[in-house]
């Protein structure tokens, strides 16, 4: 009888330990996916829309029209709180990271090819937080105008293609830097008043 009680107690301890490990895993999975793009496509709805993407060309930005596919998202959503806006922003980001296609050879990519989007988040005020990996800062260095055009390229593309976007803020590997390429203030979100006068 005593052996049975000991066995039951051990089984209870083992079960609660296993539950704790499982819960911890779930939490870490949630933390990884929360700031990022919705990885799973919910439902089968998809839509092809036109997007205007901006890339540096000389000392200005040039627009490239591109057809992009939105999956599991309503293209007309302007509600930043829902996943549709985030999915739309994510689709735009994916295209921006591919660099210019129609303007290939004429315009420059915003960041080096191979740069990955580690996370994307939109707050209630319409600020898009773009978390890129460190390879964004590798490759050809930028002068002040080049740095300005790169951050403006992200901002203009997101503003024009995702309703309600008012600003863009950059993170590198989840961290805020005082500058990206040594000239501009990366602590301040890029917004309309940031534009030249």
């Amino acid at each position, binding site marked *: 009888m005593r052996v049975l009680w000991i066995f039951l107690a051990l089984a209870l301890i083992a079960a609660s330990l296993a539950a704790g490990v499982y819960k911890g895993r779930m939490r870490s999975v949630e933390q990884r996916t929360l700031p990022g793009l919705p990885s799973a496509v919910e439902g089968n709805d998809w839509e092809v829309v036109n997007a205007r993407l901006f890339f540096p060309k000389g000392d200005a930005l040039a627009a490239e029209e591109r057809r992009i596919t939105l999956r599991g998202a309503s293209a007309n959503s302007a509600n930043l709180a829902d996943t549709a806006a985030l999915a739309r922003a994510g689709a735009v980001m994916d295209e921006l990271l591919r660099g210019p296609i129609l303007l290939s050879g004429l315009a420059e990519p915003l960041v080096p090819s191979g740069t990955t989007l580690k996370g994307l988040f939109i707050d209630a005020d319409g600020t898009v937080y773009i978390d890129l990996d460190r390879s964004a800062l590798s490759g050809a*260095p930028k002068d*002040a105008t080049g740095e300005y055009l790169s951050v403006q390229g992200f901002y203009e593309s997101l503003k024009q293609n995702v309703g309600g976007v008012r600003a863009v803020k950059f993170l590198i590997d989840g961290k805020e830097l005082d500058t990206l390429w040594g000239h*501009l*203030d990366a602590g301040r979100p890029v917004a309309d008043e940031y534009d*030249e006068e």
Partner: protein
Amino acid sequence: MKKLFACLIILLILPAACFANAAHASEGDGDLKRHAASVGEIVIDPGHGGFDSGLPGEKESVLVLAGKLKDIFREAGTKVALTRDANRYVSLQERASRVNNEMPDLYIGLHRSRTKFSVFSVMEDSARADSEAIRDRMLAGLAVAFGEDAVSMRQVPLYMTEHIHAPGVLVEIPANIDLDDETVSASIITKLLQALEPSPENRH
């Protein structure tokens, strides 16, 4: 006979030309000193440094140019400080704090650009008008010396021009300009200094 005559003419013209050039240079030097002397205190800010290389060769070349400017201002009696005097990393925050602690009469940031000269002016309200006036004179001088196509009028809000309170400008010199060439670097320095208005007691 003709050859001898030509040689004689060359021998006569050459020293005269050299003398005229030297006289012009010394007049230019005096003029530049007057411009430099109009600044009581300056902070010169060579961009990048350490692991932050900027464009190829940028962190080294702007440091050399900063050293040349420092010597000219010191000779003119100006108090000079540099945000870095060696190849080391200084954050933008540290640079801006340094300038704001010193509160000099003038701030000059030095960078390189990929293609064109740019001059960005300090945007702080109290320093804005003076900074824009210096910027416009620098751009005009650089356009005369290097051609209008070599100069960009674009203004971009930079960390330094947004965070410092002293009048000043951040100058970008194209990467294809060889700053090791003494004539070229002297020409750039001349245009930068000529944009500073001599103070009334130094005007002649």
